[in-house]
């Protein structure tokens, strides 16, 4: 009897995916960016780098800068940033949904750039500024995108909301006058199962009114 399936299809993918991520660091949130050619190259690179600098298996101490605070945490090298945030630090705003880079619910910022937390190894996020949905508001002052989501009623169940808000706000941080098409592009790697897109588009317009010049 060989290995048993534990969410088996996904597990196999997870293995190669994480190996891949080891090679290239963290992934930007964008739909369909990876071609198999790149992946194969990265795999070789990953294997090469694995030999010279082996850490784990087993617990490894890490320092993560999250929402302006340094956290000392022990985790396995295979743990994703999302898993460490949620399971070790109780920072549960970023959600685990597909665990495979298809839905965007896990989106956080690394140095201001939105990334999928489920495709980012925690160990590789060290030395970067990590921002989660919990750190987006300035104290009690919500980010304009958060305000706009409230005004437009752009949440139903709300499970996708932290991810969408992080990507949309990052897009406006980069370009306060981002067009609606640019905003659509910025959240095109996200899924909302409740279908709240119409209200999110309304929120995007409201937010531009608050941020744009």
């Amino acid at each position, binding site marked *: *009897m060989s290995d*048993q*399936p*534990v*969410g*088996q*299809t*996904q*597990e196999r993918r997870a293995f190669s995916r994480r190996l891949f991520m080891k090679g290239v660091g963290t992934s930007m949130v964008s739909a369909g960016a990876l071609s198999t050619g790149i992946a194969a190259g990265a795999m070789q690179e990953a294997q090469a780098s694995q030999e010279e600098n082996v850490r784990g298996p087993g617990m490894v101490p890490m320092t993560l800068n999250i929402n302006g605070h340094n956290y000392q945490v022990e985790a*396995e090298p*295979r*743990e994703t940033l999302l898993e460490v945030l*949620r*399971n070790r630090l*109780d920072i*549960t705003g*970023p*959600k*685990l*949904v*597909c*665990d*495979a880079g*298809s*839905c965007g*619910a896990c989106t956080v910022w690394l140095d201001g750039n939105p990334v999928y937390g489920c495709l980012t190894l925690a160990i590789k996020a060290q030395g970067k500024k990590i921002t*989660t*949905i*919990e750190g*987006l*508001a300035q104290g009690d002052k*919500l980010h304009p995108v*958060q305000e706009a*989501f*409230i*005004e437009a*009623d*752009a*949440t*139903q*169940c*709300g*499970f*996708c909301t*932290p991810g969408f*808000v992080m990507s949309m706000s990052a897009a406006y941080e980069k370009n306060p006058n981002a067009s609606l098409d640019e905003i*659509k592009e910025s959240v*095109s*790697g*996200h*899924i*909302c*199962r*409740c*279908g*709240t*897109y*119409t*209200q999110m*588009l309304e929120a995007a317009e409201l937010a531009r009114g608050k941020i744009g010049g």
Partner: protein
Amino acid sequence: MAKQHTTVVGYEGNTQSIEYAIPENETGLWGANFDYSIVGKKNIPRLDAVEKVTGKAKYSYDINRPNMLHAVVLTCPYAHAHFEVTDTSEAEKMPGVKSIEVFDEGGKGTARFAGWLIAMAAAETIQQARDAARKIKVNYKVLPFVIDPDEAMDDASPRVNRGGNVNPPEARARDRGDVDQGFQEAEVIVEGVYTTQVQTHSCLETHGCVAEWNGDEVTVWHSTQGIWSVAGGIASGLKDLGLQQNNVRVITQYMGGGFGSKFGPEPFGVLCALVAKKVGRPVKMMLDRYTDTVYAGNKPGSKMYVKLGAKKDGKLTAIHVKAYNYPGHSGGSSVAIPFMEHYDCENIRIEEQNVMTNAGASRAFRAPGRPQGSFGIEMALEELAMKLEMDSYELKAKNVSGTTYKAVPYELKLGAEKFGWKEKSKKHGSENGKIKHGVGCAVTFWHSTGQDKGASVRCTLYPDGSVEVANGCQDLGTGQRTMMAIVAAEELGIDVGFIKVSIGDTQLGLNGPASGGSTTTPTTSPVVRNACYQAKLKLYEKIATKWKTEASDIDCKNGTVFSKSHSDKKMSWKDAAAMLRNSAITATADGFTKPDVPGSNTGAYGAQFAEVEVDTETGKVRCTRIVAVQDCGKTIAKKQAESQICGAVIQGVACALYEDRIMDNMAGRQINPNMEEYKIPGIKETPDIETVIVDVYDPVVNTGGKGLGEPPAIPTGGAIGCAVANAIGVPIRDLPITPDKVLAALQRKEG
């Protein structure tokens, strides 16, 4: 003692005054003439919006308890197999592992689809639990299986369950009038076979829970649409441990989508609670995406043989449907209602059977059976219009009728106007060019029956003017909290800001409905009103003494309490509440009395209009615009209602064009059990959606509120299907309408 009331009911252009009686301790209907200050207004933000946009909202998946273990389940990889867990010792010795448990007695049984639950491993970390689950030794004896429903109908095919694969063996028939007579009267007949796909619920928050014991009491944070059925299920599942339901507390404060798939404790809910007891530590088990997709329900596919008879003017004379539903290895479905109720026809015969296959069991999915049946009847009518060379809107409008409480003819007409049907409609397939445009329309109907004894609501008025309204229901994202606050604020005559809503916790001790069947609003809103009404009367009694008048002479509007007979006597709500000093007023209402008014019904109706663009070179269909006209009786939370309608429409677009559970018939497994290859529409696939909410005042409950979750999810697929037929001049009878089917249809048309 019953009290007589009068009110005005109906909808724009069709109202009437009625009289009715209800008990004295209940409040009368608001009705069409009431001066609403909050109900139905657009500007009330969702009560929990801040929590949701800041990440503070804690879903069951987000509950982390001190010392908590993480668990994963192991499932069967084969579509049909005898299995036996033979050895768990290696798994038990893995690092961090605290428990390995099996789902079936003795760890053996027969798996009837790939995804059957076999065992659960709990460990210090989720990674360790996964590692351990892989080391559980299971012996499988693989059995013959069948995935394709057409094949499953063959007597020689492997049996999915005991009994035959076609259930019941003789079709269930529903008859109205005389269908043979109807076809004899017909001047034109159309026939077609329509099929719909299996869709998975794909809730973003997977199914699962966290269980924690404190002495004899267990608390379960469960991602569920029904906290009470979970509590009952956990208690009965663990009754051998001596557990009684008074020691079970179920909490669901936030829930990441259910759509009909999240009722009941689930076997892993019971097992979580058991392991938490045995190990003496809290346990979290949330399904991974793969298992959630294959195990936790789906919308059954269907195949409908439809035959319509009509007069030359388009009036239906007969409908005959033979339908097969595909619920997987267990469950069942029916597509009958849209054929029987959406359009008027005196002679109908529907025969239905379920065809079982070795695939995951179906569960309720946002209007069970309805989008399927709607696609069947709308497409058949479209083909009738094509045959008669009639405008399909004209044909459909000819076959609907209304009453004071059934506004569907009005809604269809209103939708056509808003949509610009006259300008956009053209003969089927008449457009030239590479990109072809088409329009289609469809109607909807759903009975959202409120349960008159389904909810207990407690209203508490505090001396500082703040108010708590509590009920044992839960909010799946529909805006239930907001709806309750709006009703309470309107009844009390104060701002929503005064109201706190407590729900999602069985420990409130207040019976509440499961969130299903679009019944939560009609079940809870009238009781919210009654509780607030009773509480405010108690406060008014105190004021009446001071003002030397009767409680019935006192009212409150826009935060000012006043005497109806002496306009100089008034005070602010806060001052009135302050008269309570150190006490609070509590009133609990149990259920409500349905006013007995002839003709009143629980139906919510509507109509949708779709516009599509078909690229005849690539076969790609884009839905560009939807106009959704919908009533839910009297709309209470308008902004949230609009969001819900848009969401339903987008799920309808998904059904029409994108989502499809694809099975490998040879391997017996789903090919796309994920969110990558199972295509859920994103923001770029979202059409321009215009919602048009119609208020239909129906004395069915005192708020006039009906359910909304399901009705707008029914007609979108049919409307889009009709629009595609209108664009290319040939019907595509098989959902989803993917490019390959479009190209094949165009080829057939040419060849």
